[in-house]
Structures are given as structure tokens and as C-alpha cells.
């Protein structure tokens, strides 16, 4: 193990190196670029024994990764924003085919208007694509997820692609001290890839077939069931990770001062640190605030969220996403979870950080005040005008 002062992208690339994928196919896009630059360097200098494929588009990046995965090897790709949307067709393809590809997405705003800074509209637009989705809060978690994601995705009960999300610039380009595990420990943690149903010359396979109305639903059901079953693979992976590396993760969600909280703010990604500070500030002023960080959007922690907020007087979701004419995707998922659990406390949705706009501690502090005052609805941070 070494301690290095590196960016989120560098940390992610280190995690990928430790996982030893055999084929990496990627196309550059800000703010993902330095991930693929680091990986190209590692392949070039021999510290990573992989084929780096210079594809001509993101669609080809994932298409190539699917091909390599079908050939039975561990694969990696990375993208962001427009690139993620350009490859969108291949996402449900990879999920339906149950190819355990790992992809890093540098969360970035989606055009129009053009903007290269961080928000989560890109990955949340593809929440329904069948991939597991995890959101890191710092560079260390990015690295650790890179290792854990392969173990989870490749679990035979799961065999589903995995998207690791890092907030663009705020995580991808921010330098932190990161513990980089040694390769031996990484190998102890991550077993070799044992593909199912891959290309086989002794037992040839027809792959990626059509399935008509009679059969189709069974494949979808099994893919759904596999993502639900990933919960135990995630738990097992985190346990093994803690045993080997000593760092603990808390499953699909991470709670902060939720036990006795009246007002719980739910968020994901790099904003959660800020939210925790704001919750402390709110508590010092008499509002019993808590923060729930969603680590995984798929599988969705519906039961965990409902259990964590069941004693709260109000719930709010802060996210860098909005579905025009609806709400943020996280909020609609959380809302369904609360409804299913029979919870009906007042709730609100704060849209903040779009296009990389800074959210201040004061902004979050005001969310807690609004919650205490019983405000509900979908609101944009920084825009006072009410939405009817």
C-alpha cells in the first residue's frame, strides 16, 4: 500500500489497474479524459497488461467492451455526459446480455446549453438502462469502487454491468491523499473473471439473440432479479474489502445523524460532505438534521431509505438533476420508496449544482430551515421564483 496525493480520475485509474482488465476501449471526453490517459500510460509502460483500443466513438467504446466481455475477458471503459448518451444504445444491450463490464462515468452536464462541469443528469438519464450505478463521494471511494465493482459485477448471481459515477471536476480533478493498495492484496480481493456463456470453441454459443413475446419477459425478469441479488454481492464485497484493506463501507446508503433526526436530507455524490456540515450547523441552531447519502441508485435502496427516514418529520432530496416537468430522478425514486413503505411525511426536492453551479453551505442550511418550516415541492437552489 502507498499513500499518494492524486486526483479522483488518477485514483480511479489506479483502481482499474489493480483490477487488471484485459481490454480497455475508450474515447476521450472532458472530464473523463485523464482516466484514459493514465490507463494508456499504464498499458504503454507495462504496468497494466491490457489491450487499449482507440475506438472512434463512445458507441464503439461500449460495443467493443461488449465484444471483449463476450469473448470472456474483464473489460473497462469510461465516459461522460454526451459520450454516455451517444453510447446509450449499448447500455441496455450490455445489461440484457449480462456482460459484467465496468464503466466509469464522470458526471457532467448534458447539452444544451453546452457545459463541461459536473451534474448528474447524464447517468440519471440512464438509470433505467439495467446497469448497477454507484456514486462515489471522494477519490478514495472511487478507487475502492473500481476494485469492488468487478467483484460485484462478475459474481455469477449478478453478472451485470456496473457504472461508477464520479462528479465531474469536483471529484475527477480534485487532489486528495489516497491509499493505493498493493497488487497482491488486490489480487487476493478480486478473484479471476469466470465468464458465463462466453465464446467457446468446444461448446459454441449463439449470443445476443432475439427473444419473442413468449420468452422475452423471462430474460428481463432474470436481469431484474440479478440486480436485486447484487445486494448480497455488494455486502460480501464490502466485508471482504474491509477484511483485506481495513476500509469500511456501509452498503447501499450511508447515514449521518439520521437516528434522531426530524429532517433528513437525501443526496448522492460529492455534495454529501457539504450536507453533513450543514446538518451540524442546523443542529447547533436547534434543527435536528440528518443526511442520508445514497451510494447505489441501482440496486435502489428503497427499504434502507424507508427504514432510515421512518421516524423523520420531513424528507428532502438534493440532486444535480431534473426531469423537466417532473422532478429529479432521485426524488421520484425516493418518493416511490416512501410511498411503498406507507410513509407520507412532507417531502421536497432541491435541484442544485446543475452545470457545475456551486452549492454553498448556506444553501443547504436553508434547505433544512425550509424543511422545518414545512415547505414542499420541487425547487431550484438559487432561483426564488415559485414553481406552480
Amino acid at each position, binding site marked *: 500500500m502507498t499513500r499518494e496525493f492524486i486526483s479522483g480520475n488518477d485514483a480511479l485509474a489506479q483502481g482499474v489497474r489493480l483490477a487488471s482488465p484485459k481490454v480497455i476501449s475508450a474515447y476521450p471526453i472532458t472530464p473523463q479524459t485523464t482516466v484514459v490517459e493514465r490507463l494508456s500510460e499504464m498499458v504503454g509502460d507495462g504496468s497494466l497488461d491490457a489491450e487499449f*483500443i482507440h*475506438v*472512434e466513438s463512445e458507441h464503439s467504446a461500449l460495443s467493443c467492451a461488449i465484444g*471483449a466481455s*463476450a*469473448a470472456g*475477458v474483464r473489460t473497462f471503459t469510461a465516459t461522460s455526459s454526451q459520450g454516455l448518451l451517444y453510447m446509450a444504445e449499448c447500455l441496455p444491450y450490455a445489461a440484457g446480455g449480462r456482460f459484467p463490464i465496468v464503466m466509469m462515468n464522470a458526471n457532467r452536464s448534458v447539452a444544451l446549453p453546452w457545459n463541461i462541469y459536473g451534474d448528474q443528469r447524464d447517468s440519471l438519464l440512464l438509470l433505467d438502462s439495467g446497469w448497477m450505478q454507484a456514486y462515489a463521494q471522494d477519490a478514495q471511494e472511487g478507487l475502492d469502487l473500481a476494485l469492488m465493482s468487478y467483484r460485484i459485477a462478475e459474481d455469477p448471481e449478478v453478472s451485470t454491468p456496473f457504472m461508477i459515477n464520479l462528479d465531474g471536476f469536483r471529484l475527477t480533478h480534485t487532489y486528495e491523499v489516497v491509499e493505493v493498495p498493493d497488487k497482491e492484496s488486490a489480487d487476493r480481493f478480486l478473484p479471476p473473471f469466470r465468464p458465463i456463456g462466453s*465464446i467457446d*470453441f468446444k461448446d459454441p454459443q449463439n449470443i445476443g439473440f432475439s427473444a419473442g413475446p413468449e420468452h422475452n419477459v423471462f430474460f428481463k425478469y432474470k436481469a431484474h432479479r440479478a440486480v436485486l441479488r447484487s445486494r448480497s454481492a455488494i455486502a460480501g464485497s464490502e466485508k471482504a474489502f474491509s477484511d483485506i484493506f481495513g476500509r469500511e463501507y456501509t452498503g447501499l446508503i450511508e447515514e449521518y445523524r439520521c437516528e434522531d433526526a426530524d429532517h433528513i436530507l437525501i443526496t448522492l455524490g460529492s455534495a454529501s460532505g457539504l450536507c453533513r456540515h450543514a446538518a451540524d450547523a442546523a443542529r447547533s441552531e436547534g434543527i435536528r438534521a440528518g443526511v442520508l447519502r445514497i451510494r447505489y441508485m441501482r440496486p435502489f435502496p428503497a427499504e434502507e431509505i424507508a427504514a432510515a427516514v421512518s421516524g423523520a418529520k420531513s424528507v428532502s432530496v438534493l440532486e444535480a438533476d431534473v426531469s423537466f416537468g417532473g422532478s429529479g430522478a432521485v426524488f421520484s425514486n425516493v418518493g416511490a420508496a416512501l410511498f411503498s413503505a406507507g410513509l407520507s411525511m412532507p417531502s421536497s426536492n432541491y435541484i442544485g449544482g446543475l452545470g457545475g453551479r456551486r452549492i454553498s453551505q448556506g444553501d443547504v442550511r436553508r434547505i433544512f430551515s425550509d424543511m422545518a418550516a414545512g415547505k414542499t415541492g420541487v425547487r431550484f437552489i438559487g432561483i426564488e421564483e415559485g414553481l406552480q
Partner: protein
Amino acid sequence: MSPPVPELSDDEFFYGHKACAGCGGSLAVRIALKVLGERAVAVLPAGCMSAVGFNFPQLCFANNAIISTFAGTASMMTGIEAGLRARGITDFKVVGFAGDGGTADIGIQALSGAIDRGDDVIYICYDNEAYMNTGTQKSSLTPFGARTTTTPFKGNVRDKKDMFEIAAAHGIPYAATASVGYLNDYMRKVAKAAEIKGTKYIHVIAPCPTGWGAGSDETIELAKEAVDCGLWPLAEYENGEFTLSMRAKDPSLLDGHIRRQGRFRHLTSEDMEHIRELRDRRWDRIERKWNTDQRRRTQ
């Protein structure tokens, strides 16, 4: 040399599929796989051949085969080639079979990328000159004058894109045109492609009786005539040189060849004249730029 028919493998790798009776594309796939053998991994994008061959639980490829996204044939081939090589497997061929739309329209970017990288794959375009799987819509390989459901009155207003020369312009190690009407030539080219390292592109004209408006038994004649009348020159590109595989036997066959196809039935005499001009201009260029001396063609 091509494997003479008696020596061609008895194996059938593409069998029991649901292609229309007389489908030229399915013949192109069948024959190529017989030449390449059981170590071929076939990649087929959305299109006729994937639609007819992969209806679970009716799976019609005896070898490893996979459907790719429509645009992703070449990039999936790249991934498979790299993946199998990473597993330490060496004795295999990755072969793609994409239609004209899958190749010259939606798949051209990925194909260009694969050729640019020099990926060791064989890409075969089976050209039936329109989107036949969706019921005959114009592609960029639909010829001038051909009626499709999206060029319903006068027919297509432009001529085919020249994918063979586009592939060659990349400096590809090997490219060829072929016809299911000349299977010995096609088999020889597939066998040759299998021996060459790097990206190989074979463009095989494969009539679609359903979309061309012809009888199901006319496929081979149509494919042969297209070559004989000079509309579809058979050639190879290798080491930076174009070499004609055979001369057009009888340019006067053109009118009859066009007239027998339902998709051209509406053409005026001016249209016919235009088709002749397009063909003759092409041949002028071939005579100037290609190696057309048949004695120089070595086997």
C-alpha cells in the same frame, strides 16, 4: 486458390434460418463460413441475417456467433478479437456480416475505426442494395433508379456509394468485391482474406428477390449478370493496387438485367441511358487506374 467444390467443407454453419426463399445474403454468409470453418466467430448487426438466424430458441449458427448493435459491428469484432487474443487463443477468425445499410450508412464510422486501427478481422458486407429487413427502404448502396418504399415514385436519385474504394482509401491490407453469382471467386477471396493479417473488407453483391422484384430462383443469375454487364466489377485491392478479377463479359446484357427487376420497371429510356453512363464512367476510371491486365493476376 479457391477450394474446389468437392473439397469444400461439408459443415453447414448457417442452417434452418428464416431468410426468404432464394436469399442471396444467406448464401453469402453460408459460403463464407464454410470457407472459414468452425474457428470463425461471426458478428452480425441488426439486419436480415441476424433477424432470421437468432430467434431464441431457434439458433441457426453452428459456430460461435453474436448479434451486435446496428452501428457496432466492427467495434464489437474488435473487442472479440482483442478478448480472445487476451485469453491466449490464436487460432480463430472474427468475421462480420453486415448488410449495405449496416455497412455504408450506420456502421461506416465503426468500420472506418477498425480499418484505421488495423484490427485483425474480416468484414463482409452482403449488399442487397436497400434496407430489406424493414421492407426495402433506400440505403446509400441503393443504385440509381431503384424503387424502394422510401423512394417510391422515381426511384433513387443518386448512384451507390463506392464502399470498396472507400475501404481501400484507408490503406486497408485487403479489400475485394465479389458476387454470389461467382462463388468460386468469392470463396477464393474469403480464403485469401483469412490468410492476411490486419483488416480485410469484402463487399459481396447479394440479390434480394423479395426487394428487387424477382423470382426466388433468379438470385444467382441476377448476381452473375450484374458482373457480366459491368455494373458490379469484381476486383481486389492489395498492396496499394487495384486489380480487376475479371472483365465484364457482355456490356449489352445491361438492359435485360435492369428490365427483369421489378424495382427498375418504371425507368424511362433516359434513366436507362443514365445507368449506362454511370457504368461506362466507372469503367473509364477502372481502365485508367486499376491493373486490368488479366495475365498479371496471380493466384
